[in-house]
């Protein structure tokens, strides 16, 4: 199977190289009109077909690796290092991305899937898709070359083949690890598609903004995958790492967050290009940057440039990535210099206080946030280079620098939708802002009355202060968004006689992009509320003998047993804790500590009881070697559940935004027969 896999990868590389060269030649012939023995159209079609065949070849290679994992083929070094016989089936799939070589193969395979779909839908615009397909082939050549020559997943063991493997990293033996990395990779790899379209459209001086409409769905789906991947990663960190938090500003986390920020900026600013023909150069560079950041993130975590608590797949492929990034950057700059005259804006902003302006500031803040994270990630290297002294850029630095920027972004989330396009009058500002401002101040007072004071123990408390600002802004933003819904729904309700709920649904269906976007913003607000809750986290640690009690908040934990269990994969120690709330018995928790047999590595399995108010989070830290008693650490983490609920709302909003809006004809079908005809503005509200 190793030979089959290696051979499949080589064939895939050859096909991708043909796709790149033949595609580029065909496009060159088409652009210059030079005569050739074979027609450029036919040549381009052979390139496209080679791309499709290449996808089949990569799929075979991926299948070969998965097959090798399931058949325990320890003659392959990768399988020996990342799997073992007792590993449960679901985690054998995880082995595909648990190491350097496997994760690169997954990357190449996902890129193959995206390219395959792109090539199947080429009739949408044959020339533009030919450019995009050729650029995708270029990216594919890079990954396949790395797989064939620098990080081969089918490398064979030398010497005697062991009976069993080293096993999967215990940190990865968790259900979310089966879906988190593929989600994240779908997000990373997916940004190749809008990148390819943007570069292709620029190369061919594509007329109009159609390429943005073509790539909108690609970009949103990609963004959704990346968002879901990041949140699943947060939940994994929360449930597995056992330190009570979900985001530690680790370089691996930062690497996924940076392209998310620029991708989010792109999703906002393309609206300016679609509606007003503005910010064309900006958008092109935003998507170039997003793609480059996905590569940079991989470089940072794989090349060992920065240390990370969960870099599972480090190796020395950094040089390959640096070279590829330089090539990509050079191609982008060269194409831009050659074709930038094609990107002239058709309009300019008319006022500092307008919807367009809010988009611009939104972009500014998102990019500043991206810079801050990049700066924080790279500063230790810079400091070591400049003064020979490596420093730590931990959570205190990020919290102090990034949170104010995030709060400013939240503020813009509320302000933007309230501003009209072109320019806003003072009257409209007063009318639209009065309710959100009232909500903001009422929330400030309520929070202060409830004890969220920016002073603690006589000193200014940044955590409490930021939480106060976050709650207040969240209230204002929610009010702003809901008032937008109610205003539009009120008009529809008056026009059609529907109740307000039904009118709100129809309003959303008529402009899914706008109102889906608002729902996404509500999701962001819910997430922010959840994040702000971390200012009030508390914890307590205790060694617990039988029937010892530990109290945190309203909960009392009583140790009713400490026992052991084992299976083929691991041995586990766990404590049995009866939990009562305000004196009444509620439920039982069993925090666990596992020791994996193959690797000998320990791993905590946290017990979490989640409510909308807070999470009771209990860690079995181990046993005191002197007394033999279990050591239990309990956390009370307020509002954590809101973060995961916010993700659900965010996904829901994105799915709504992906659904096409009702066209005037279908909208008319949904209006009750006796109602009056609807004004055009109600079909979307675009003025």
């Amino acid at each position, binding site marked *: 199977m190793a030979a089959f896999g290696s051979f499949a990868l080589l064939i895939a590389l050859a096909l991708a190289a043909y796709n790149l060269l033949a595609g580029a030649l065909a496009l060159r012939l088409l652009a210059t009109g030079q005569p050739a023995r074979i027609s450029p159209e036919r040549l381009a079609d052979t390139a496209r077909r080679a791309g499709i065949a290449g996808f089949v070849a990569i799929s075979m290679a991926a299948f070969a690796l998965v097959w090798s994992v399931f058949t325990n083929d320890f003659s392959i070094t990768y399988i020996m290092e990342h799997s073992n016989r007792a590993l449960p089936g679901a985690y054998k799939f995880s082995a595909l991305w648990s190491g350097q070589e496997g994760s690169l193969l997954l990357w190449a395979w996902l890129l193959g899937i995206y390219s395959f779909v792109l090539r199947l839908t080429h009739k949408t615009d044959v020339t533009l898709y030919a450019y995009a397909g050729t650029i995708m082939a270029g990216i594919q050549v890079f990954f396949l070359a790395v797989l064939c020559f620098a990080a081969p997943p089918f490398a064979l063991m030398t010497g005697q083949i062991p009976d069993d493997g080293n096993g999967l990293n215990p940190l990865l033996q968790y259900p979310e690890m089966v879906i988190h990395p593929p989600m994240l990779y779908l997000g990373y790899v997916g940004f190749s598609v809008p990148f390819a379209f943007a570069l292709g459209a620029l190369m061919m001086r594509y007329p109009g903004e159609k390429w943005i409409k073509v790539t909108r769905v690609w970009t949103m789906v990609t963004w959704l995958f990346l968002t879901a991947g990041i949140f699943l990663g947060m939940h994994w960190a929360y449930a597995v790492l056992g330190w009570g*938090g979900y985001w530690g500003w680790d370089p691996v986390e930062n690497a996924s967050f940076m392209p998310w920020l620029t991708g989010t900026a792109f999703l906002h600013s393309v609206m300016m290009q679609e509606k007003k023909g503005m910010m064309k150069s900006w958008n092109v560079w935003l998507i170039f940057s997003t793609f480059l950041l996905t590569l940079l993130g991989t470089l940072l975590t794989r090349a060992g440039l920065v240390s990370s608590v969960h870099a599972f797949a480090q190796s020395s492929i950094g040089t390959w990535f640096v070279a590829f990034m330089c090539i990509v950057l050079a191609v982008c700059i060269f194409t831009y210099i050659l074709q930038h005259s094609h990107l002239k804006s058709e309009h300019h902003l008319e006022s500092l206080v307008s919807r367009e302006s809010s988009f*611009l500031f939104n972009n500014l803040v998102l990019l500043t946030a991206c810079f801050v994270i990049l700066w924080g990630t790279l500063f230790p290297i810079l400091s070591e280079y400049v003064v020979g002294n490596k*420093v*730590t850029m931990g959570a205190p*630095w990020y919290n102090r620098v990034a949170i104010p920027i995030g709060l400013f972004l939240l503020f813009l989330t509320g302000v933007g939708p309230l501003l009209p396009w072109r320019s806003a009058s003072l009257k409209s500002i007063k009318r639209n802002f009065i309710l959100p401002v009232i909500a903001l101040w009422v929330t400030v007072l309520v929070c*202060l009355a409830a004890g969220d004071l920016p002073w603690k123990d006589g000193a200014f408390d940044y955590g409490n202060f930021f939480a106060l600002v976050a709650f207040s802004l969240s209230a204002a933003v929610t009010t702003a968004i809901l008032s937008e819904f109610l205003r539009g729904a009120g008009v529809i309700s008056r026009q059609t006689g529907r109740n307000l709920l039904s009118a709100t649904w129809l309003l959303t269906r008529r402009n899914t992009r706008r109102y889906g976007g608002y729902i996404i913003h509500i999701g962001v607000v819910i997430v922010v509320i959840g994040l702000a809750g971390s200012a009030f986290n508390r914890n307590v640690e205790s060694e617990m003998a039988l029937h010892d009690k530990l109290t945190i908040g309203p909960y009392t934990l009583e140790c009713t047993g400490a026992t052991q269990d084992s299976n083929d994969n691991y041995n586990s120690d766990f404590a049995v804790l009866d939990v009562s709330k305000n004196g009444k018995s509620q439920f039982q928790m069993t925090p666990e500590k596992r020791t994996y047999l193959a690797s000998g590595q320990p791993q905590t399995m946290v017990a979490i009881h989640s409510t909308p108010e807070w999470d009771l989070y209990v860690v079995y830290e181990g046993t005191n070697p002197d007394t033999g008693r279990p050591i239990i650490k309990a956390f009370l983490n307020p509002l954590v559940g809101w973060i995961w609920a916010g993700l659900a709302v965010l996904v829901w909003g994105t799915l709504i935004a992906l659904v096409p809006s009702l066209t005037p004809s279908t909208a008319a079908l949904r209006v009750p027969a006796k109602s009056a005809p609807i*004004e055009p503005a109600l079909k979307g509200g675009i003025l």
Partner: protein
Amino acid sequence: MKPSTVWMKALQAGALAVAVFISVGASDAGSRYNDLNHKLMCTCGCAEILGECNHVGCTSSTAELSELRAAINAGQTDQEIFAAFQAKYGAVVLAAPTTKGFDLVAWIAPFAVFAAALLGTVLLVRRWASLSIGKTQAALADPANEDPAERERREKIRRETGIDGGF
């Protein structure tokens, strides 16, 4: 009373209420232990904040936490504690860079970049706005550019919906 005066009074009252609540919240200096152990790193290589290192029997965090408690009990200031830790474990023991020397760049750069970008954006928008006003005035001066039907349609929609725009 003018509406603007009412707004100003309401704003002042709100600000005053906030100030009162904040003052009420000020309290005595308490334990610094938890705050300080969140400003230091565990040096065992786990890359975790000292107060959050959850490795049972971790010799590094146990020793560091003991040293921290001893330093607090000895009445050392925060700066003295940080300096002692830095001298013993190196600069990486601090969870964030100091505000001295080259470390200061780590703090200043993000805000400097943000301020510069903000200023640049404001100037750019103002410049664009002045260009657009010039263009609009020129367009309005030309009767051929006027479309009464379109203007009437817009006005009607504005009157009936109160919606100023959309995505």
